Structure formats: C-alpha cells, structure tokens
C-alpha cells in the first residue's frame, strides 16, 4: 500500500483531473445548448443538437464520476457540502435532470411550442449548474458557515445559505458560465459549417475576451482576500480530524504560489492557451482552437486548486473545523484500493471514450443541415 499522504495527494490530483474532463466535455455541450433559444432556424438548432447528441450522455456521466469520487475520497466533504448547500445542489440537480429528456424527447414531436420549450429548458439545464458550480467554488475562498459535532462528527450549518450569492461568489459563477460558453463556441466552430461556423467563431472571440477580463479581476480579488492557513494539525489528522489550528491571514491565498513557484505555471498556461485559442480561431484552425480552450479550462481549475490546497471545504464559522485533504479523506485501504481500480478503469474509460469520438467524427469532421435531414428518423 502507498503511504497515506501520498494517496491523499494523488487523489486530490485525480479529482481535479476528473473535474477538468467534466468541464471540458459536458462543458461544450452546455455551451452549445445555450445557443438553442437564440437560433432562428430549426435546421440550425438540429445541427447544434446533433453535433453533441452522440456523446452528450457519456459526457454528462463525468459528473457522476466526480460525485462518486468525492463520496469515496472525501466523504466528509461530500456529506457536508451536499447537505449544507442543500438548495444549491437541488437547483443543480433539477436543472441537470432536464438534459436527458431535453436531448431525447425534443425532436420526437413536431410541435413548435414543444420544441421551443425544450430549447429554453436545455439552455437553462446547461447554464444553471455551471453557474452554481462556479458560485460554490468561489465561496470556498470565503469558507462555509459550518461546524462539526465533536462526538459523532455530524456537520451542522449555522447560517442560511442565501449568502452563497455574495459578490465574489457571483463573479466566480459568471466566470464559470463564460468559460463554457467560450468552449461551446469553439466546438460549434469546429463541428459545423458556413453561417453556424462563422457564428461560433465570432462568439468564441467575444466570450474569450469577457472571460479573461472577469478571470483577471477575480484573481486580483483573491489576492486581496484574507486566506485560510493550516498552522498545525494532529499527527494523525484522519483519526482526530478536528484538532487543527487554522487562521485567516491577509493575502494568504497567493502564499502557496510564493512558496512553490511551480504553481505559477497554472495562470501562465491559462493565459497562453487563451491567446493560442484566439489566434487559432483567427487562422481557422478549429481543432487547435478547441484544444487550447480545453487547456485553458485545465489552467483555470489548476489556479483554483493550487491556491486552495490543502483546503477542500474550509469553515468560516469555526476555522479549526475546516476540511482539508489531510483530515477529510477516507482511510488508507479505501484510497489505495480505489486508486488501483480507479487507474485501470479510468484508462479503459478514456480509451473507449476516444474510440467513440473517433467512430463518430473520423470520416466526417462536420455536420450540416443536410445530414440531419437525411437521418430524420435516427437523429435527435
């Protein structure tokens, strides 16, 4: 068995990786469906729907992977976050739930009203979860108002959570939304033709500029915020998870970057891949544009992760009850076993996912309105 701290770090990376994959696959689906209410022609909508249709389900499943991963790797975080942020997660859930019927049912009836309704619902089901995920991540920098009962370790919340929607949280929500809008647009440019492709190119540039401005202002804001610092913990933080000494120290979030300058690669990669994505779009190199967009998503996630480490779910109500990579994880056996299983399964999964993408797109790189018309009864 690998040593526990190493396992905890590996899993921190893996959860991050899964979230990046989720954001960059289901992310473009969410970005695409946001177009539906704004497109005028039904043929265009069908194209937008069908360039994501063959793989949307597999893409969305990464959220199940992420949720399951959270449950098994950090059960304390999973239970504290999902119960404490009850209505945030209910909202995420109920909007996410509109996606499968949206994709499956929308084109099964010819009624205009029916399709129009699903267009709007699909757009909502893409944007609302993305926005709320952003809000939650943003609030991690401020901490959540919970404590943990010391005998039986039940998480207890002390404030109504409407305060999630504070200015900083909202800013992070919008960053998240513009990130997937940019990503979805790059995908649209890559997989469609003529006017739709041109639309994707225009919007990609616009969203990219807005995103980089929002991200930069949030980054400056984070530097100004007081940050959580873990000064001391028990020799066995898993067995005695509440024996921490945590303090709020001005400008501490950026401290990690100073301590370990390698962290600076994250923002560097982020900005560089945005530039790359923009230039690739300019030169009509759509595949490069899309993959640069993926890289920038990874960069943004890494920026957040590096700043927060080792905190996963900090407590603003009782700083010492903050949940970290060290005190909130499962035991060594569970982490080790799941690592062996997880690495094998993740490799197999990635392999057949890539095969799926290859089957769908290797012969025909783009989809046109004519293709949809030819497959009226098979396509969505």
């Amino acid at each position, binding site marked *: 068995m690998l040593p526990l701290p190493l396992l905890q770090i590996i899993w921190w990376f893996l959860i991050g990786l899964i979230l990046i994959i989720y954001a960059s696959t289901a992310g473009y689906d969410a970005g695409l469906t946001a177009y539906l209410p704004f497109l005028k022609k039904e043929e265009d909508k069908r194209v937008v729907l069908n360039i994501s249709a063959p793989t949307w*389900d597999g893409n969305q499943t990464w959220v199940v992977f992420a949720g*399951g991963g959270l449950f098994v790797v950090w059960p304390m975080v999973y*239970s504290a976050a999902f119960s404490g942020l009850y209505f945030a997660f209910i909202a995420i859930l109920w909007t996410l739930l509109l996606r499968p019927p949206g994709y499956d*049912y929308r084109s*099964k009836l010819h009624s205009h009203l029916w399709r129009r309704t699903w267009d709007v619902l699909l757009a909502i089901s893409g944007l609302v979860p993305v926005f709320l995920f952003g809000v939650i991540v943003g609030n991690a920098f401020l901490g959540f108002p919970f404590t943990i009962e010391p005998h039986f370790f039940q998480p207890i919340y002390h404030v109504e959570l409407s305060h999630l929607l504070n200015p900083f949280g909202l800013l992070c929500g919008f960053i998240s939304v513009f990130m997937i809008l940019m990503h979805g647009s790059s995908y649209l440019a890559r997989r469609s033709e003529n006017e739709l492709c041109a639309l994707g190119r225009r919007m990609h540039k616009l969203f990219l500029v807005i995103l980089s401005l929002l991200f930069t202002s949030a980054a400056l804001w984070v530097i100004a915020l007081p940050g959580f610092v873990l000064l001391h913990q028990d020799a066995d933080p898993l067995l*005695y998870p509440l024996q921490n000494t945590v303090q709020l120290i001005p400008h501490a979030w950026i401290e990690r970057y100073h301590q370990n300058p390698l962290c600076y690669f994250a923002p560097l990669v982020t900005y560089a891949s945005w530039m790359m994505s923009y230039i690739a779009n300019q030169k009509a190199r759509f595949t490069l544009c899309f993959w640069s967009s993926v890289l920038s998503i990874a960069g943004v996630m890494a920026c957040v992760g590096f700043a927060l480490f080792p905190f996963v779910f900090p407590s603003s109500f009782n700083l010492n009850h903050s949940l970290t990579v060290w005190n909130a994880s499962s035991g060594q056996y569970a982490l080790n076993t799941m690592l062996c299983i997880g690495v094998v399964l993740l490799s197999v*999964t990635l392999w057949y996912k890539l095969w799926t993408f290859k089957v769908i797109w290797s012969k025909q790189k783009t989809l046109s309105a004519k293709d949809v018309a030819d497959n009226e009864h098979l396509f969505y």
Partner: protein
Amino acid sequence: MLPTTDLLVDLSRMQFGFTALFHFLFVPLTLGLTWLLVAMEWLYLKTNRIIYRDMVQFWGKLLAINFAMGVVTGITLEFEFGQNWAYFSRMIGGSFAPILAIEGITAFMLEATMFGLFFFGWQKLSPRKHFFVTVLMAFGASLSIVNILAANSWMQHPIETVLVPENMSLRLLHLGALYLHALAQIRIGHVAFAGFLIASIFVMGISAYYLLLKQDVAFALRSFAVASGFGLIASLTVAFFGDQNGLQVAQYEPEKMAAIEGQWETQKAPAAWDLIAFPNQKTRSNGFSIQIPYALSLIATHSLSGTVPGVNQILPIYENRVRNGLRAYALIMQHTSLKWTPEQKALFDVYAPDLGFALLLRHYLTDPLTATESDIARAAYSGIPDVFACFWTFRIMLACWAWSTALIFLGIIFLLRRTLLEKRWFLRTILYSIPIPYIAAEAGWTLAEVGRQPWTVHELLPTFLSVSALSTQAVFTSLIGFVIFYCSLFAIELFLMFKYARLGPSSLGNGRYALEPIEGD
C-alpha cells in the same frame, strides 16, 4: 449529533423512498430490454434479415425514451446520499462509497457512452462492431445492478467492516468480499432476472397490441417469440434466486424474516405458513389468518425440522445488546479531544458490535446513559421492522410473479400451437398485464428496505440518526418539488412511450411497415 425530529426523518425517508422507487420504474426495463436487443441483433447478424434490424431499432427507440428517465432519476440518488443522509454518507464513505464510485465509473459510464454509439453508429460501424456496441451497452446496464446490489447487500449485512471510534467512521477491510458474499450474489441474480422478466412482459404486451390490431404481424410475432423465450428463463431464474435470498435473510436478518412471515411467537417445527394474515404491531399478534400446515418450514428452511424465530423470542436478545451497546456509548462520550488508550480501545472493540442498539435509545432520550429498563425494552422493540408492511409486500411480490409466469407459459403454448392470433382474450390480458411485474419489483424493493428498518446499516447505524441536519421545511419543499417534477416528466415519458408504441415499427420511417407515412412525425 443533533436531536432530529421524527418529521424530518419521515420526510427524508419519503423523499428517498419516492425517488428510489421511481428510479426503479425505469431501471429494470433498461436492464432487460438491452439484452433483448442483443438477442435480436444477434439474430440479425446470423440471418442477415432486415426485419431483425428493424426490431432492434424500434425497440431501441422505446429503450431511449425509457433510458432518459432512468438517467434522470439515477443521478438524483447519487446526490441524495449526501444531501439528505449526510451522517450516513460520512460514516460509511470508506466502505460503501467505493462500490458506488465503481458503479459510476464502470456501469454508468459504459452504458451512457455506448448508448450514444448504439443510436448514432448504425451507418458508421460495421454490423459486427455495432453488435459489439449493443453488447457493451447491455453489459454496462447489468454491471450497474451488480454494484448497486453489492452496496445494498452490505447495508443489509455489513461485512468486512470495523467501526473506528475516534472519528466514528466505518473502515473497510476487504472490498472484494462485498461482491463475493453469497447474499450479494444471490440478490444480484434476483434483481437482474426480475429486470429481464419485466422487459419480456413489456415486449410481449406491446407485440400483443399489434397482433390484436393485426398490424405488422410478422414483426410482432417475432418480437413476441424472442421475448417469451427470454421471459421463461427469467421467470424461473428469478424464483430460484428469490428462494435462495429467503434462506440468506433467515440467516442474517432473522427479525426481517419474522416480519415477512408474521411470526410473533416461534412455532414448533414443522411450522405452518400464513397465506393471509393481518399483523398488528401494537398488540403484537395477527388478526384473521389463513394457514397452510408445514409450508413455513419448507419455504423458509427447506426442511420439516426447521422453524422461523418469532419476534417475542428475538426481543430478549435485543435488550441484552442494548445494554452492551451502552458500554461502548459511554466510552465514546468520554472522548471529545482526548486520545484513546489501548485498554479503552480494547474494551470498546468488545462492545462495538452492539453500539448501534444503544443508539436506538437516542430516539427516546437525549442521553441514552440514563436509560431505564422500560426504555431499553422500548428500544429493543423498535428494532423490529413493520410486520404488516413486510408481510404484505412479500405476498404482493409473490402473487405478481405467479401471474407473470403463468402468462409467459400460456404465451409459449399458444405460440407453439400457432393459435396465438385467435386468443384475443389472452392478447388483451397480456397487454394490460405490462404493469404487473413492475409491481412485483417495487414491492420487492419496498420489502428489502422496510424490512431493514430501523437501520440504514444493519445493526450499526439507525435510520433516524443518518439524516442530514436540515430544516423540515427544506426537505418538505424538495419532496413536493420532486413529486411535481417527476410526475410531469413521467407524464411526458408515458405520452411519448404510448405514441411510439402505437406507431409501432412504422416510426422507423423506412417504408416497410403499416401506418406510413406518418402525419405529424
């Protein structure tokens, strides 16, 4: 732990029960229909006759409508463990969650990815490769059952787990054992074949509808034949596993067995089986009952010398366990931040298996250490599940299975005698019997879960302590929301299902079937 109100616990249970049972309206059809599609596509590969490919595509369309709902309601459950059962999730994260995570990675992922290829791969894949995709899709769906049942069986009988008192979590010792345990394997078989049975009756019923209308007869007869053969195997196998499951329950959850059979007092062997009875939890006796001599011993123990322990014989054991559990409870309450000494740990380990019984007292007392003898008796009695519910869900399940099996036998007989088309009464009966095996499945799950009460993790963690510390208004609001949301989606699903089932294979739009061209589609 916060004192939790009964209302909060009830609302949380209602929400989970509602969403889980709702989920299982869609899962079994996906489970069974995917393998039926495999069978049909295999026939297509072998014979190269286009009608078989049409069968795969048409029944695949109905699968898609059903599948969307299965996905929707499945994601809910993964969220709900953390949302409504925070304490449960935290405590069992290291032991139960690995299986759930494996389910997400393997089953859900494989099924969802192959599902896309199944529909969009017809022109992009060779027939052989497409068949392979269909197999993978079915395999993914079945893997899901394997994992979920392994996890649920662990909740019914938590093996290979130790309670760590320092941080009150359950530590897993051996993951593989959770899959390999007989209880898990038997229940996997039971649920999987129940799904195959449901799908068979579904396909037979809808095919019967086309036969009644004399529309697309060749297509319907072939579908009917494939499904009835499949259904025959399924109905016999599901019964075999169900019977084996009974033996396991008698061994690991004797109180559930007592409740299922309405046994308040232990009968002398050979014991009589109550076919009908009206158990009363308050008076601890059965109202009116009809008994079959010898049958209980035969059913529950497969012998004439065995018997089923009654509730009144289980209670003294439980009272003792409450008393033992209190010793472990006292040790935990001594420690807030102090470290445990090895002696205390050793003492704790002796009484740890009974800690859960002491926790049952939390329902009545804020401090269980002050418990009197009458409190202990009350807590022990709360360890017995609702006898009426267990008794009747079991019998409903059994009756619905018998009905479905009889229909399948008749169907095969009529099919072999080539008189199926003339037996209109039979065709009509099987069409309207589509919901029957569903009722059996829902009753079966209700039995499994109600019968495990008052525990979420058997004899370790009581249900009323497992809930999240939420306000009752919050759970009430979400429960109402779920009911409205699910029912509207269900209405839409049923509308589409009926529409496409009525259209029949003509909905493929390939010009080979009745009712074409279709208006409004």
